[in-house]
């Protein structure tokens, strides 16, 4: 999980993502970005999150916590 924030930054095409950053406030947040995040969580961590579930998640830290919980 140590590369979680780096992967997120990659998808969002920014230098860095901090835990308290609100996902929807990134400039290039759109449905394709959401799709990219879901695909990456599945491929990298084996976590299947639905679009509806992602919609309820606010910050990068909340997303990280959800992924951690699902991996257990």
């Amino acid at each position, binding site marked *: 999980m140590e590369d979680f924030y780096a992967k997120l930054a990659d998808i969002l095409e920014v230098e860095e993502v901090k835990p308290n950053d609100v996902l929807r406030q990134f400039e290039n947040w759109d449905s394709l970005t959401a799709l990219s995040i879901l695909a990456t969580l599945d491929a990298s961590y084996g976590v299947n999150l639905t*679009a509806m579930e992602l919609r309820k998640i606010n910050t990068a830290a909340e997303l990280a916590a959800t992924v951690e919980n699902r991996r257990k």
Partner: protein
Amino acid sequence: MTGAANPLDLRGRRFLVTGAASGIGLATALLLSRLGGQLVVIDSNPEGLARALSMFEGNGHVSHCYDLRKLDEIPSLLMEVSASGGPLFGLVHAAGLSCIQPLRLLDPSSYHDVLRVNTEAALALARGFQHKKVADPAGGSIVFLASVMALVGSPGAVAYGMTKGAVTGLVKSLAVELATRGIRVNCVAPGFVKTPMFERVSSLWDAEQRVQVEAAHPLGLGEPEDVANSIVFLLADTGRWITGSVLVVDGGYTAR
């Protein structure tokens, strides 16, 4: 006029169906068995295969649990199938993988298996099927699964569309090359069909996107049986003057 009284009578004919444990493959295999066809079903899911086998009508059907990513061994698998149970009249490659990823995530490793199963396995199956020890000397019929994503576009469908577009290209030259052998080659291009693959893909959409996809099909989303009916039409003598075609079965998705 020539031909049988019922061109959909498949008694005495043997068909190989991949991806037969679920979705379009299962619906196709079931219909073939109801029309009197004898089946060789292939899937990578052993439980699904056993369940499918118990659903078919008639006797003498066989199953092979096989991972179609092993391309090199596909022709010998078909040879073995034919040697043990008789020649094949038809081949349906319904096994497939989905790949819904935006371009920015499409490194080659992300779509390698999808290309292998959707496209390269189709070619390997055709190569195995056309062998004179495999295909029925009376002729044969191959049906591949393309997709509306081979004909129109959608965000995130780049790799999937590539694999299915290649299938439509494959069908044209195979049809011409195999015509002298009496083997017809066609594909169907389904719209969104309610299958386990669709459920996986649609979990990536929010409620709004799901409504949009449904609305894009004037006749609504398809059932696996809707596509199976078209596949069987192409396989049976109903399709005997059809080769090299892409039959669009999409509830009107591409009509707009």
